[in-house]
Structure formats: C-alpha cells, structure tokens
C-alpha cells in the first residue's frame, strides 16, 4: 500500500509486534509509538531533553535521518545507550524505512 509501512517493535518485556504506520502524517516515531499504546513518558514533549523515548534500532539504522548534535549529546548522557540508540522523538519515518526494527528502552520514571 502507498505511504504505509510496517515496522517491528520489541517492548520492554520482550513482546514483539509488527505495526503498520502511515508515512504521510507529520508525526515523530515517539508520537506514533504513543498512539499505538506503547508506554512512553515523553516528558519533554519531543525536544530531545528527557530521553524517555530512547529506542534501540536493531534493523534499518542506516536508513534513518542523521542524528542532530543535540540528540547525540542527549544519547551520550544515557548510561544504557549503545551505537544503535536513537531518540524516537527525533525520527520521522518515510517509505524507505519499511521493515525497521526497534526495541523500546526509555525509562518509565
């Protein structure tokens, strides 16, 4: 289907689920995850300040937009970040991101 992609999400408890998301809406991945009923605090509302939307990209990392300095600085402060870490609030997915796989990491308090 046009402008719909499927991505795979692993929740904190290990549950894996594929979800279909539209790519023609102006929403960040954080907003999409929240709308899909995933538990994400997103305290700062998408300003790359709180890192509660931390995700680990297990497939398709290189197809994402480059992280900004602010995002890298924030990721750098996270004790549990890895080279595959991103902040979902800074990601906007397009059709090329079909098949993206990620694990939700962000803190719940």
């Amino acid at each position, binding site marked *: 289907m046009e402008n719909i992609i499927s991505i795979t999400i692993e929740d904190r408890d290990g549950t894996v689920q594929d979800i279909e998301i539209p790519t023609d809406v102006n929403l960040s991945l954080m907003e999409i995850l929240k709308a899909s009923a995933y538990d994400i*605090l997103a305290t700062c509302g998408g300003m790359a300040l709180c890192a*509660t939307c931390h995700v680990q990209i297990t497939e398709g990392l290189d197809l994402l937009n480059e992280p900004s300095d602010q995002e890298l*600085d924030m990721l750098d402060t996270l004790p*549990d970040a890895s080279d595959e870490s991103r902040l979902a609030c800074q990601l906007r997915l397009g059709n090329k991101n079909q098949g993206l796989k990620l694990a939700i990491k962000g803190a719940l308090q």
Partner: protein
Amino acid sequence: MIQTDICIIGAGPVGLFAVFEAGLLKMRCHLIDVLPQVGGQLSEIYPHKPIYDIPGYPTIKAQELIDNQMLQIAPFKPTFSLGERVEHLEKQEDGSYLVTGSDGTAIHCQVVVIAGGLGCFEPRKPDVFNLSLFEKAHVHYMVKDPEKFRDKTIVIAGGGDSALDWTVFLANVAKQVTLVHRSDSFRGAPDSAEKVYELAQQGKINLLLSHNLMALEGTSALQQIRLINKAKEEVFAPADHFIPLYGLSPKLGPIAEWGLTIDKNAIEVNTFDYSTNIERIYAIGDINTYPGKLKLILSGYHEAALMCQSAFKYVYPEQKLSFKYTTVNGVNAF
C-alpha cells in the same frame, strides 16, 4: 517566614502569568523555583528559540516572552525564592499551608499552585547491580566537595563535559582516577577530551573506553566496580567512591510524595478549576494532566486564569468574586 496568599511552585511562563491573574483579584504571590532564574525551560533550555503560538506575537523569542511577562506582573510585586527546590508541604489547622524549601525558606500561604513544568532536573542513575546498596556513602551523582576524594581511589562514569572536567580536576586530588565511558570517543568539549587523553597517556588516570558498567562490589564498603569491555570480558576497577555523571533528567521530585493523584509523572486535575485531589492545591501548565491536555504555554495561561477564580474563595472567604475586564478596570498595582 514569608506570608503570602498564593505560593506558586515554578516560575516558568505559566507560574508568572498566574501572578498576573491573581493580582487582578488582589491576591499576592510568592514563587519558588529550583532554577537560579525565572522563566523555567524557556530561559534555561531554549532562550533564543522563537515561539510561534503566543497570541498576538507572530514570533517571539522565549527569553523575550519571559522578560515581557516579568514587566506585566511587576505591578503586583511578586516575591521569589530562586535556586531553591520545594521540599515539604504542611497543612495548618486553619486549612492554610506551610511550604518549606530545600534551603529552609518557609512560606505561609492560603493556596498552593504547582506550575512545575517538566518537574525538577535530577541526576540520571545508571542501571548497575548493587547501586542502591552503596548509594548512601559511596556513590555521588555530583561533586560538591572535591576534597572528599583526596587520596581516594575513584571511578567516574560518563562521557559528557562534567565527566571530563571532573576527571581532569580530580586527577590531581584523588589517589587514582578511572574514567569509564561506554563509547570509544568523547562528544564533550574537545579541549577537555584532549586533556583526558593526555592524562591517560602520562599514566595519571586510567581511561576505560568502550566499557560498560555491570556491578558495584564490596563487602561493607565499596571495593571495586565490575565492568565489561567490547570483547565481553570482565574488567575490574578498584574504587572507594563511584561518581556516575550522566546528566540530568526531569523528575517530579518531592511533589510526588504529597499524596496527589499522579498519572505518568503528571498531576491529575479537575478541568473546572485545575484543582487537584487535595483542597487548596492546584496544578497548572505542563505538570498537570486531564483528558485532552495539550502541553502548550497558552493552555497553561488559560488554566492559570480559571485557577485564580477558584482560589479566590480561600484567600477572601468573606467576599463575593465579581469578574472584571482589564479594559474596564485597568491594572491596579499593589
């Protein structure tokens, strides 16, 4: 002791506007904020960013908005306790409240308004086994007194500016400093990173890049930290003290212990007047939640106005509130 009508926790845009709305109803305000200046995240985090959704301003820089708001509330002579975190809340016999700050400031008020935004920023804790066991005496999330570490063996963790700067500083104070970072490079200031590399080359510090923290170990006192390197081998770093410096993350802080109904770090309120489940305590702005909540500055302004109409009955129980427009009445300074 400070005597006021309304104690506002948080001096961001919404807390400041509450002073204006309260002032129109002749209620005095005292504001307490953990940050050293007014303006909340607008002044602290994005003072130069333009905001586009303030009515009447096609665009306005965050700090300009705060400066304007300070001018707007000047007639009502608000007082401030800045750089102080609110700690305790104590209900008095007559229903009023005594609010105490971390520096001991006592504020007696009829109404408490929580306009705390994201909350207060607290040190981020690493997920390390046994952290809580040694937290009290051997783990330090900030360096308050470097002398505490004189001739001690310390492990610093983190890759940001504060981790780099304290490593450089404490290299001359402590007996031995180990810096642990999960990545193979630093994003902090290049100068500080350069110094850290130099110290490591000279053998003055022990630099462990691409290492992850696993556990704190010791019988009664902290003795060593167990790490894992890129090859998944265990590595042990001796330590009397552990200093994790992973930046700050927004938390509710002591407010969370006050018995308020809280959902996902936000305070539930009644949209009739933005009152909480506790009488005389209101929550406005980004810190509250209700069905349909939008975290917008302008929503917070609206919440402040309605809150004041409701708070009036606690400040002036004998009086009847009559609503007046500023265009009719003007602004009558205190």
